[in-house]
C-alpha cells in the first residue's frame, strides 16, 4: 500500500486518507532513536513571515526505543506495557484513526534504552516508535512529516528524530518543518555530560522562553550559519552554532558546570558545545574527521569527571571511521 501523499508537511490541514484498500492489521514493530538535545533552538521566521519556535535536533542513534503493536481482536481499548504510557497510547489511537482503523484496540509494548527526563527525547521516541509500529501493523510506511504531525498531536511537542540523519529546522510545537537544511549531519563524536546534581525535567511544565528582539536577530544569523555548515559539511561551524545557541539557552534553563564544558571544548580544540534546551544534558562536539578524534574524546571525558560531571559517555553521529556505536 502506498502512504498517503496528501499530508501537508507544513502543518496545513490535510484531506482524509483514502482507506478503501485497508489491510487486516498484523503485529507491527516500530523503532525510533533518542536525541542528545539540540544544536540550535529558538524562534525562526517561517514561509508565512511569522515567527515559529523551532529547533535542530542532535540525534543519538545509539539509544533506541522499540514498540510492538498487537492489534486486539475483541477489545476496543489500547493497553500499554509498561502501563501508563499515555502519550504513546494516544499516538496509537491517532495513528489507527489516520489509517482508517478508528475504534480498533490492541496492546502496545515499549522497550526503551532511553533514560527519562534528561532531554534525551525518551517520550518522543516512545511516541514515534508507537506510530511506526501501528503503521507497520497496517502494512504502511508513513512519511516523516506525517509521523511528526501525529506525534505532536499525541504529546503537544515533539522532536525531529523522525527525520533521522536529515538535518531539519523543526517547529516542535507544530510538528512541521520550517526548513530542510539540505544535507546530513557532518561527522561528530559527541561526549555527553551530565552533572551530578542534574535532576529530571518535565518538558511540558517548563516555561516557554521569551526571547528578546536581539536574540531573535541572533537566531537568524545562526540559522544562516547552520545552513552553510550543513551544506559544506563543516563540523566546526555547526559546532559554533551549537555553542552560541547553548549560551542563549543558559539564560532560560541554566545548566550547572556549563562554563566548564565550554572550557573543556576550547582546551581540546573541539567544535563546540551543545545542550538539551529542555533537559540536563550537555555535549562536547568533536570533529570525527580530525586527527585522533577518539583520543580527544577520551581526554575530554576523563577531565569532565574531574570537574564535576557524572554519566559521561561518548557516541558517534555519522562518523563511520570510528569504532563507536
Amino acid at each position, binding site marked *: 500500500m502506498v502512504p498517503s501523499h496528501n499530508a501537508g508537511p507544513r502543518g496545513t490541514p490535510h484531506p482524509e486518507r483514502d482507506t478503501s484498500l485497508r489491510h487486516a492489521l498484523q503485529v507491527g514493530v516500530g523503532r525510533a532513536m533518542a536525541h542528545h538535545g539540540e544544536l540550535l533552538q529558538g524562534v525562526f521566521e517561517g514561509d508565512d513571515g511569522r515567527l515559529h519556535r523551532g529547533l535542530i535536533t542532535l540525534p543519538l542513534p545509539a539509544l533506541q526505543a522499540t514498540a510492538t503493536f498487537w492489534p486486539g481482536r475483541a477489545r476496543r481499548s489500547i493497553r500499554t506495557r509498561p502501563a501508563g504510557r499515555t502519550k504513546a497510547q494516544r499516538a496509537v489511537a491517532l495513528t489507527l484513526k489516520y489509517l482508517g482503523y478508528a475504534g480498533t484496540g490492541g496492546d502496545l509494548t515499549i522497550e526503551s534504552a532511553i533514560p527519562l527526563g534528561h532531554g534525551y527525547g525518551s517520550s518522543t521516541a516512545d511516541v514515534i516508535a508507537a506510530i511506526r509500529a501501528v503503521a507497520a501493523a497496517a502494512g504502511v510506511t508513513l512519511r516523516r512529516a506525517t509521523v511528526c504531525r501525529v506525534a505532536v498531536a499525541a504529546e503537544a511537542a515533539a522532536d525531529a528524530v523522525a527525520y533521522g540523519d536529515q538535518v531539519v529546522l523543526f517547529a516542535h510545537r507544530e510538528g512541521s518543518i520550517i526548513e530542510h537544511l539540505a544535507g546530513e549531519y557532518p561527522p561528530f563524536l559527541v561526549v555527553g555530560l551530565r552533572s551530578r546534581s542534574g535532576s529530571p525535567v518535565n518538558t511540558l511544565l517548563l516555561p516557554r522562553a521569551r526571547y528578546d528582539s536581539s536574540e531573535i*536577530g541572533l537566531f537568524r*544569523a545562526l540559522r544562516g550559519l547552520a545552513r552553510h555548515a550543513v551544506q559544506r559539511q563543516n563540523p566546526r561551524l555547526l559546532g559554533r552554532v551549537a555553542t552560541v545557541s547553548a549560551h542563549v539557552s543558559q539564560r532560560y534553563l541554566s545548566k550547572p558546570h556549563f562554563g566548564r564544558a565550554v572550557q573543556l571544548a576550547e582546551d581540546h580544540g573541539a567544535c563546540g558545545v551543545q545542550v538539551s534546551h529542555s533537559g540536563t544534558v550537555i555535549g562536547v562536539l568533536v570533529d570525527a574527521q580530525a586527527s585522533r578524534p577518539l583520543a580527544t574524546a577520551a581526554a575530554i571525558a576523563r577531565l569532565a569527571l574531574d570537574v564535576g560531571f557524572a554519566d559521561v559517555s561518548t557516541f558517534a553521529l555519522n562518523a563511520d571511521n570510528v569504532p563507536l556505536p
Partner: protein
Amino acid sequence: MTGEGHGGFPTLYEAPRIVRLSPNLYAACFALMKLMPARFMLEQAEADGRLRPGGHVVESTSGTLGLALAMLAAVRGYRLTLVSTSSLVDASFRCRLELLGATFIVTEDREGSGDQRGRLARLRTILDEDPQAYWPCQYDNPDNLLAYARLAEHVATTIGRVNCLIGCVGSGGSLCGTARFLRDLFPDLAVIAVDTHHSVLFGHPPARRLLRGLGNTILPGNLHHEMIDDVHWVGALPAFAAARSLNRRHAFYMGPTSGAATLVARWHARRNPDAVTVVILPDEGHRYRDTVYNDDWLATLEGWPPPPRDDPVRLTRIEPAGEGEWTTLHWARRSLRSLRATGFDPTP
C-alpha cells in the same frame, strides 16, 4: 530567504547578491540596502501599535531611506511625508518618490551643510500636528540595527566564517547592526568603518562634503564607536574613482559610497590574504548618472582625476583632509569621548 513577505512586498527586493571580488574578498551588493531597515522598522512599529495599517509615516531624509520608505508606502498603503533640504534633493529623485505617492517638504539650505537642524525642526512640527504619525528615526531607532540580522544571515549562509566586515557609516545601522550579529558568531571579527572628511561621526569638525550617502553632521545613536577597530576617511575623488573602477573591472554599477567601501576593502583584503573580508555595497549608481558616471561633470572637479593610490595616509590623531585624500586611524574600539579625552581630537 523567502520570496514574498507579508503585505505583498517581495522581500527578495531587499536581499543582497553576495559576489566574490577576489579570493578572500566578498561584496554584499544591494540594489537598495535601506529596504532592509525600512521594512523592519515599519513592521516592528505595526506589530506593537506605533504605526497603524495605512497610517502616516514621516522621516527626514534625502537619501535612499526615503526611496525605500516610498516603495513600502506605495505597496502597503501608508501615507508618507519626507522632509528634505534644497541642497540635497535633485529633481529626478524627487520625481521618482512622488510617483510612488510620497509628499516632499523641502527646507531652504543656504549654507549647503545639509540643514539637519532645520529639517528636524520641521519634522517636529509635523509630528505635533499629527500625533498619530510614525517617525522611524533611523539614526536612533534600535530596530534599524536589528534589521541587519537579515544581512548577517545572508552572509553566514553564503560565506560561512568571516574575519572582517567593512562598511560605510551614515546612521551606523548597517555596519554596527551586521557586525553585532556576525560578532556573536565570530567573536574575533574585525570591523572597519568608512567615513568621509568633515563628517562628525568619528570626530571631524563639520563642513561641506562632496561625497554624500555616508558621513553625518550629527551623531546618531546607532553608531557604536566601541565596536570599531579601524576608521578610514575617504574623500570624494578617490571614492568616485573607485566606483568607476568597480564598474570597469566588475561591471558593477554602484554608487560612490560603494566605491569608497571597495577602495578600503581591496586594500584590507590584499594586506590580509588569510582573512575572509566582506564589504557592504549599499546602492546602485542610477542616481549618479549625471555626476559620478558623467565624465564632463567629473572634469569640473578640482583635483580630478586623483592620482592612483595604493595606500591610505596613516594618522595618529583625528584630523580632516581634502577631498582628494584617503586617511586611516586605528580606532581600537574606543568611545569617541575617550579619544577626545586623550587629546586625539582637535575639535572643541
